[in-house]
Structure formats: structure tokens, C-alpha cells
């Protein structure tokens, strides 16, 4: 993008998402911007990160020389384990997810509908290779699903929409969206803007959203 930065950048979106995570939470982070959340635990809080490939107590990327290609996160990036971590196999790991033991999951999105429907695994294009990973397990099993996403696609289309046109990952699962422009809650009345990024006003966000927004 050649245009000037407006709203939050990727790091700031991750930092903003981290602020909503209560002390003591068990949190799973999706691939992409959500992976960065691990860096921004607010002072005075302790959060335990779960990665579905078999680690509870995931830390940030390793120092140089400390890398182990067999210590990775769900995005296959090198990570570390905190003191007090544990390793387990895939079925046990997804028992944590599907059994409702993870408190919060922060995911990326292709589309979020105003009823909380999430599409983040397929465009439905018959020529594309379908790939789902753990996304459907996460949205079915984790108590609170939040999304971090650019407000619009690379081509400028809204990602927050009245109804998803892409195949669903889960129905009615998203409770909050942190975009580059705003923090938006999914409510029974629809999308409600609860916070605007610095320098961004409500109308600017509304213009880039595929359905009506509610002001706080």
C-alpha cells in the first residue's frame, strides 16, 4: 500500500488485542497477526499461551542460537517454552480446545458477519486448494473467539459484512473484532464500535464496512 498509515499497524493491533486478555487466561493464537499477541502481555498479568501442535506455555521467538526446529507454533514458526510449560500429543491438545478449556482464541479472518459468523479458511473458489487446519475446532470449542484483521481486503472490499459470502468456519462464533481502524463487538443488534483507532472517526470506519455499524 502506498497510502499513508491510517489507524493501527499490525503490531498495534496485536498490542490492542492483548489488552483485552484477563490475567490467568489460557489463550490460543491463530496464524498471522494474532501470533504477535504473545509479545504484548500487559504488566502485572500472566497469560498462558496454547499452541495446538502440542504446547501449553508458549513463549515468543527464541534468541539466536536457541532455535529448535522441533519447537514451533501452529504457524510453524520457531517459539520457546516458558518455565511451567508442558508438551502433549495432538489429540490431547485438541481436547483442550474442543473440551472448552481454552478461554480465548484470537484468529485472523477473511470475513466476519454481523451475527458473528466467521469465514477464514476458504474463498470457495473451486480452483483453490482447500485448507482448514485447526480453525473449525477452535471456533467450535473455545469460549471466546476474537478476530484481528485488516478492516478491508487488499483490494479494498469490506471484511465486516452483513452475511459471509465465503464458506463458514463457524456460525455465530465471533464476539469481538480488532481491526486496523476500530475495536468492534458483535452484539445482538449487530456490529458495535467500542473504540476507534487514533485519528479514525466513525464515518471513516462505516464507509469501509459492509453493513450498518452501531456507535457506542
Amino acid at each position, binding site marked *: 500500500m502506498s497510502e499513508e498509515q491510517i489507524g493501527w499497524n499490525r503490531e498495534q493491533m496485536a498490542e490492542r488485542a492483548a489488552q483485552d486478555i484477563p490475567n490467568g487466561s489460557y489463550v490460543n493464537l491463530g496464524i498471522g497477526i494474532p501470533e504477535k499477541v504473545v509479545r504484548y502481555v500487559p504488566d502485572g498479568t500472566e497469560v498462558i499461551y496454547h499452541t495446538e501442535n502440542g504446547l501449553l506455555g508458549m513463549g515468543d521467538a527464541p534468541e539466536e542460537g536457541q532455535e529448535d526446529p522441533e519447537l514451533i507454533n501452529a504457524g510453524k514458526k520457531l517459539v520457546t517454552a516458558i518455565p*511451567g*510449560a*508442558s508438551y502433549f500429543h495432538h489429540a490431547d491438545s485438541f481436547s*483442550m480446545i*474442543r*473440551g472448552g478449556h481454552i478461554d480465548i482464541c484470537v484468529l485472523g479472518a477473511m470475513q466476519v458477519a454481523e451475527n458473528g459468523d466467521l469465514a477464514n479458511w476458504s474463498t470457495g473458489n473451486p480452483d483453490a486448494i482447500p485448507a482448514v487446519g485447526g480453525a473449525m475446532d477452535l471456533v467450535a470449542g473455545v469460549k471466546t473467539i476474537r478476530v484481528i484483521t485488516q478492516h478491508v481486503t487488499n483490494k479494498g472490499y469490506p471484511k465486516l459484512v452483513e452475511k459471509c459470502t465465503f464458506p463458514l468456519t463457524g456460525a455465530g462464533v465471533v464476539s469481538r473484532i480488532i481491526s486496523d481502524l476500530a475495536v468492534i463487538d458483535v452484539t445482538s443488534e449487530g456490529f458495535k464500535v467500542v473504540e476507534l483507532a487514533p485519528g479514525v472517526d466513525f464515518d471513516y470506519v462505516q464507509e469501509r464496512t459492509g453493513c450498518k455499524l452501531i456507535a457506542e
Partner: protein
Amino acid sequence: MINKQVNSVHDAVANINDGATVMIGGFGEAGSPIELIHALIDHGAKDLTVVNNNTGSGHVGLAALIENKRVAKMICSFPKSANSFVFPDLYKKGEIELELVPQGTLAERIRAGGAGVPAFYTATSVGTPLAEGKEVRNINGRDYVLEYGLTADFALIKSLKADRYGNLIYNKTARNFAPVMAMAAETTIVQTKEFVEAGELDPEVVVTPGIFVDQIITVADPLLESKLVAAEEVYP
């Protein structure tokens, strides 16, 4: 800082309400969290549904909980071990309910409850009275019965070591039902022989990750049920 320790066995069981479903670890006395059970008797919660492989021995631990009329229903596989008098007496009088479940089905139902599996099929009990009234389905030429996941409000378990996150390891065959019960209960309460610093347990050897544990109390020198039974002790 996360620290799941509580101050006493009495604090640990303080929120267990009348009518609660309580899973209690142990296979016989191996893994039985006897101090937590005794604290539960002191606490007084009643009309409990208790899930345990057995029904206790003598007049201590689980047998004492039953004898003190706190248990409305037992879900178990083997309610009549040696030295088990309390449950059989009440059962014959019609004063306690029993749901008899094959041991493997019991373990799998608890694991399913903890893993978010609401129901599954199993070959165990097909063609026996324990399959009566249950859905039977033929899959690839063999009959299976439908069994449902089992969850609980509370689990009381015993570990060898625990850290402040709730990571647990166990001692030998005392492990038995504890890891799956910790998964299946809304609130898991642990009595541990030893409490260790975070990081002291190798992440490769943790059996129950802390996510499944809510409260920890150290009982360094737990009572031995078999000794109490041999001495004909009665609790309280």
C-alpha cells in the same frame, strides 16, 4: 501471577454445593484423595452424585462420605470390593442409586466429557444387560452401543507433585482416573504430596497440564486408607 494454591483442604472443597456431581480419583486406595474427601464430609454438601471406580472401603474416605448420607447416586464399575460394606448396605435398603458402567466405558466417557465429545460408540457391553435401553448401531459389520460423555462440577484428585500453574505428575498406578477426571470437571481440586517451583517439572513429563487444574493443596503425608481400614477407623 498465576498461583492455584489454596490455604487448606477445607477452603479447597468450600464451594462444593448440594446436588453437585463430583468425580473422585483413585482405584481402591491408590490415588484416593482421602484428605479432600474427609474435608468434603466436614463441609457437609449432600445429594451428591459421585463418580469413582469403586465405593470405598471400611468407614473412611469415600465409604465414610457414603455412610454419612452425602451421596445420592454412585456412578462406578465395581461397587463391592473387599472391605466394602457401606455401599452394599445402603443399596440393599434402596437408599442410594447406582449407575453401573463397565470400567473402560467409564474411563472413556469421562475422557470424552473432558474432550468435548458428547457421545461415542463402543463394542463394550453389546449383547449384555448393561446395553439394555441403549442405542445399538452396526458400523462396518459389528454392533456398538452409544455412550455419552460424562462431565462433573468438581473433581477431587491426588498427585505426587504440582506447581503453581497446576501441572501435575503422579505416582505409579495412583495415576488411574485422575488425568481424565481433571479434564472432565468444571473445577478440579488437587491434593499433592509435594508442591514444586514452576519450571521444576520437565515439560516433557507433565501428565496433567495446568489448564485442567483449579485448586491445589499440599498434603505431604496423606493418610493410608488400608491402614485406617485395618485399624477399623471411622471418619469423622
